[in-house]
């Protein structure tokens, strides 16, 4: 195998590449050289104010059939009502997630309200329950992208990857002040290149396919519904102040 590797690299090196990658003259750290020589361009971003950011995000993600609800501090009640109306029996959430305390506290107790189910086991211990007995999953999210109407998730031990993927309904709470204009802006602002997590995701709408006659059908393998709770806190919306930078306590936890 090492042989194959050497041969492939040698064949590539023997080509008259544009930069100096002549055998024997490689820099001690090829990475540094290739990274600094990589093309750069200004950060692609737009000067949209808070309202426009929210508006574009909303239109973008609604266009791909996500449901967006503006919520306030009683968002758990609103979520419970939305799920109850759909006949969901339960909602799985990460008990160590950043929004879990608020969710539990605000969750109504009336008859017929979906049950809150903590998702705190390794997948090996809860695979069946997650696949077969879960109607909805709840997660926080890291940011929103206005240009494309995307949610940005970095799944964590508290809110693992499959929680946003396996249940037929995925519910997300997004703080309006976490919406940025583009992915490029977000990567730059948060210094992603230095701190990529195991899994980073952009989610734009529920799962879909156009494999049959280019006709969109929803809920193929991932969630059939995506419910976005868009919370505008009173602190936000102070003119054209840019969204908070990366490491607020909330996003560090999420």
């Amino acid at each position: 195998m090492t042989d194959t590797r050497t041969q492939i690299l040698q064949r590539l090196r023997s080509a008259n590449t544009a930069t100096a990658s002549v055998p024997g003259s490689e820099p001690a750290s090829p990475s540094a050289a290739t990274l600094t020589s990589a093309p750069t361009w200004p950060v692609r971003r737009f000067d949209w104010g808070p309202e426009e950011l929210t508006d574009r995000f909303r239109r973008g993600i609604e266009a791909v059939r996500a449901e967006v609800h503006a919520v306030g501090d009683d968002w758990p009640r609103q979520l419970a009502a939305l799920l109850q109306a759909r006949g969901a029996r339960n909602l799985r959430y990460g008990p160590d997630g950043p929004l879990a305390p608020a969710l539990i506290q605000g969750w109504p107790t009336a008859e017929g309200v979906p049950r809150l189910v903590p998702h705190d086991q390794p997948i090996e211990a809860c695979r069946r329950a997650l696949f077969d007995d879960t109607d909805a999953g709840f997660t926080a999210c890291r940011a929103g992208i206005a240009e494309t109407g995307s949610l940005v998730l970095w799944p964590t031990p508290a809110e693992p990857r499959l929680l946003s993927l396996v249940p037929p309904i995925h519910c997300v709470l997004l703080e309006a002040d976490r919406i940025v204009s583009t992915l490029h802006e977000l990567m730059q602002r948060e210094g992603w290149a230095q701190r990529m997590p195991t899994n980073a995701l952009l989610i734009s709408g529920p799962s879909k396919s156009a494999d049959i006659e280019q006709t969109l059908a929803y809920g193929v393998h991932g969630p059939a519904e995506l419910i976005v709770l868009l919370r505008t806190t009173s602190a936000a919306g102070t003119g054209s102040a840019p969204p908070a930078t990366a490491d607020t306590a909330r996003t560090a936890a999420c």
Partner: protein
Amino acid sequence: MASAFRTRAGLALSRERVRGNIRRAMDGLVAKRRAAFPDDAELAQLRDQGQAIRDHALANLPALLEQLEQRCRVNGMQVHWAADAAQANAIILDLLRGHGAKAVIKGKSMVSEEIGVNAYLERHGIEPIETDLGELILQLGNEHPSHIITPAVHKDRAEIAALFNRHFPDEPCSDDIDQLTALARRVMRARFQGATVGMSGVNFAVAETGTLCLVENEGNGRLSTTAPDMHIAVTGIEKVVARLDALAPLLTLLTRSATGQPVTTYVNMISGPRKPDERDGPREVHLVLLDNGRSRIHADPELRATLRCIRCGACMNHCPVYTRIGGHGYGTVYPGPIGAILEPQLQGLQVQGELAQASSLCGACAEVCPVRIPIPQLLNRLRHEHAEGPTASQSPSQSASPASSQSVPIQAVPGGHRPGLQGRVWRAWALLHASPARYRWMRRTIGGMGGLLDGPFGGLLGGLFGPWTRSRTPPRLARRGLQDLARQEGFADD
């Protein structure tokens, strides 16, 4: 003269239903792409960036691959190198057997088609399960993709319903698309739940961070790479890019060019296996880096542009040949304009050289290609080499030798001059056009005959030009040429 390609193309043209299915889909995709790029200046700028990013990656390919390998290892992934399809398949089989897997769930991947891993695994007693809706349809129908983005585009809902009813008799369904999709979901759920190994391709591999970026709409890609204990990603060595922020322009170019979407439903960036404190995700992630002829293409400064491709499919959506004969007409894994330049290089001109003829050179492909691959120019180059033999006489097996040669031939067997007629015709053409006297003589002779094809020799030559004039009006030479007219106006002959 009826070659394999011509036979296949002829057959494809006679399938009215398939042609209709493909045509409708392509018209839709063309319109969606156009709507997705409303701003010409922005598109031009993005294409500049896309080209620059991919060019830089190819110019620094060995160093970037080493860096990618190193970063992936630091992140906890395992990296494997495969010189060809056989090696890649052996690596995959080894991993599956080591894991005791009886089956593997697969996300859509063209590279997996390229190496024929499904057939290989089946022969070795492991069941490959395609989970993408389009790929599932093909697997059930025992077919290959006819498009790199929308693989079952040649089939309509009635055919798919018949196929599903045959394979899942317990779950009868109509040809309603929502019903068909729901059935695919039900069937696949159990497989996702029970799978121990998942396989996927890679859209972009980031050297800087050791990140594998995958785009998809269905969620099967995320499931295949998250639910099982082991994830095997297979990718061509050209898919690497230097920096993470290159993803921003590349993703927007890819999804808008491919389907007109601002972004796919899921963009999945994987930078390692499950960490000790994490509760799901695969415990092992393997990356298989496949050469399979790419390093040979890389060695040629002109043909290297082929490797810029980000597999968006826009060139085929816009191609007058593809939209008529569809992917199966090409008989190769990669169809359309990209296939017509890539396949002869991967498989050799002796095997697939004729594909370079599968083009009207209208240039639509180059006009839409998000990374500006000059496809018509490369087609011409390949046509030339196919007819005349390579410019340098070096066989691929020796291509690891010094960097002195400007051009490495891509013929599997050197010395493949196109025999007979075509060569002679062009030599005669060259002879007649090389000297003013000979040219004048030719003009007078042909002009005097009233044009070649409708003159007295028309019947004779008609056979020669046969296929070409069957659907076209034959050309007619003016009785008096430009030279004559110019001389009459008093211009000197030189």
